[in-house]
């Protein structure tokens, strides 16, 4: 009978929420709590470096702020734990927010971190779910700050609906098997999402703006990138998506705009780039030391300075739309009768010697490209799309809409100039 009472008491304790105020010794309370307990933190500032090594749920009211006692230590360390959930905290530290080590089934959500060096570190853990986190770093150089989320040697990671600003890499994933990165936003950082030595990973519906590189994928296998918005990675080394020694990757349904290079493929095999809009980039697709297992198919190239450039290995092009294609579609099947040749002497030079980039779209190069277009029509070997599309469904329509201030300025200038001219000519 005693055992039954004891069991019932223990179960009640697990399901009862324990209210906590800021004056409580939180670390002691965590240690004293039974496995599976829930702590409800009331608003206030909690100072310390807390360690969790058991199943626990921490739920915070609005206005719960965590500060570290030791700035070099993370505010919360979850180590050797299973089934941990932390929700609704605000972290103020110049160090690290949370570290998760050797743990399973950890869920972090609705956490805000400001002015931190790094947000969340994950080591040798699995089934980690991180959602609705906001991490704002500091103004120091990328090399002197940490990542928004960094995961090492782990498995089954979900990173959803988070925001990262001014960090080194928004999401850094190294040696992880199975990661879903979805609906996050990374801005003003080095890399938006960085996959290294990982397998079976996907990045879907994320937004990467004004980083050095939007998606950096290195030495990783089986990657899916889908519906990400990758824009304005236009710095000196800016790239929308960089692939280095990647095996098997699908890049589909993206809008990639205003980057220095939209997609850079280096030493990579099994790339399938399909149904993306690559618009207004300086170079849309760059391929270096890659092989013919790579295919660029059914994409839209609009307003890029250079559509495709490569070394002598080239890259396969099929059924893409190119806004500078000058062929015609006689049988109206949506495919041009002539091949499209993306090969430009200048584009190739830029690959070989980056110093040539100074002349990008210079008057002399524009003329050279026009000559190339005429002379390359017969080319059949490198960067040739034999079935170029001739229709672009999302083409912008010209609409009649009055812009009053510009109209007035325009009319004043025109009438003024014509009046001056008339007066000068007649007098």
């Amino acid at each position, binding site marked *: 009978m005693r055992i039954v009472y004891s069991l019932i008491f223990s179960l009640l304790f697990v399901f009862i929420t324990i209210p906590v105020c800021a004056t409580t010794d939180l670390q002691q309370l965590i240690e004293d709590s039974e496995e599976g307990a829930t702590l409800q933190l009331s608003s206030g500032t909690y100072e310390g470096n807390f360690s969790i090594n058991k199943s626990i749920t921490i739920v915070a009211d609005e206005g719960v702020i965590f500060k570290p006692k030791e700035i070099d230590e993370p505010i919360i360390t979850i180590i050797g734990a299973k089934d941990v959930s932390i929700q609704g905290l605000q972290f103020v530290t110049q160090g690290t927010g949370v570290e998760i080590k050797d743990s399973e089934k950890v869920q972090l959500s609705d956490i805000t971190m400001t002015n931190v060096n790094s947000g969340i570190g994950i080591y040798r853990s699995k089934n980690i779910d991180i959602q609705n986190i906001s991490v704002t770093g500091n103004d120091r150089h990328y090399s002197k700050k940490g990542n928004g989320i960094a995961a090492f040697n782990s498995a089954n990671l979900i990173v959803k609906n988070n925001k990262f600003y001014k960090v080194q890499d928004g999401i850094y994933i190294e040696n992880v098997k199975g990661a879903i990165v979805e609906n996050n936003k990374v801005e003003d950082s080095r890399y938006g999402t960085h996959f290294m030595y990982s397998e079976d990973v996907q990045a879907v519906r994320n937004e990467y703006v004004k980083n050095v590189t939007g998606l950096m994928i290195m030495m990783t296998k089986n990657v899916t990138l889908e519906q990400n918005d990758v*824009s*304005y990675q*236009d*710095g*000196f*080394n*800016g790239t929308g998506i960089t692939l280095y020694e990647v095996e098997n990757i699908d890049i589909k349904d993206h809008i990639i*705009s*205003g980057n*220095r290079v939209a997609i850079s493929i280096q030493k990579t095999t099994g790339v399938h780039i399909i149904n993306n809009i690559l*618009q*207004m980039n*300086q170079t849309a697709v760059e391929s270096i030391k890659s092989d013919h297992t790579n295919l660029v198919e059914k994409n839209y190239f*609009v*307003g*890029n*300075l250079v559509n495709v450039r490569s070394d002598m290995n080239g890259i396969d092009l099929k059924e893409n739309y190119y806004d500078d294609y000058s062929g015609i579609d006689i049988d109206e099947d949506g495919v041009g009768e002539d091949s499209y040749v993306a090969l430009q002497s200048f584009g190739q*030079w830029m690959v070989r*010697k*980056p*110093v*040539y*980039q*100074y*002349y*990008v*779209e*210079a*008057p*002399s*190069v*524009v*003329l*050279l490209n026009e000559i190339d277009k005429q002379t390359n029509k017969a080319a059949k070997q490198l960067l040739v799309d034999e079935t170029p599309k001739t229709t672009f469904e999302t083409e*912008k329509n*010209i*609409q*009649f*809409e*009055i*812009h*009053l*201030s*510009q*109209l*007035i*300025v*325009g*009319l*004043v*200038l*025109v009438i*003024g*100039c*014509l009046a*001056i*001219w008339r007066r*000068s*000519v007649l*007098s």
Partner: protein
Amino acid sequence: MQGKLIVLEWKQMLRSRWLQLVAILFIFVFIAIVMIQQLALPDIDGFTRQTASFLNLLLFLLPLFTLTIGSMSVAGDVESGWFSLLKTYPMKTFQYVLGKFVALVLSFIFIVLLAFGVVFTFGGFFGGVHFPYEFLIVAFCLILIFSSIAILLGSLAKNRLHALSLSLVIWALLLLLLSYAVMAIGTIVPGHVLQKLTIGILHINPVDWLRFGYFLLSGQTAVLGPTYFDLIEFYQSVLGKIMFVGLTVLWMIIPLLLATIKLKKFGVEK
């Protein structure tokens, strides 16, 4: 006297059929690019194909028109004896050169403003056009520098035809040939040599100089690539900015001074 000469020259320029045709051509091309590109391409900031088209339009056409009209105007004065007549008036040669220069600059500023006016009027009916102010500055600098060079070429030419051919050669040299020469050399020399050569040419070619100026003004220097980081960093410093303005002003003044010397000698030779 100086003011009267400027007004007289300006009126003559505006009455010139050649200048009127140039104005029509410039406006036509300008509108074509705006309407075809700006209204058909997505609105994306940065150095895109449409900004490159605008920049190249200015770099191609303004030097060509300024050089040909300006140099032929001066050569025509010398050829027709108008310059010799003017020398009988109490007016220094530099005043004549300055008068020509100001009239030429005003005429082309007039054309550019008219072109912008027409573009804005058209754009005003289609939701407005995005037109960065940097283009206006580059256009004015192009007019100032190439008007100055045009007057020098006019003073060097023996007659109007000679002035025209000189202008075309210089235009092709600055716009195309120098770049092609550097690019060709680049295929046989190492990258660091090509980089130094490019930087050298940049300082002695006003077209490259103003193109570089556009990137500096618009904050899009990254377009030029990381190889030129040090150069860009220098020209983004205060000293660099002063040097940039100084060199631009020198490009305006030196050809005028050389033209003055040449025209003074012309008087002596006569």
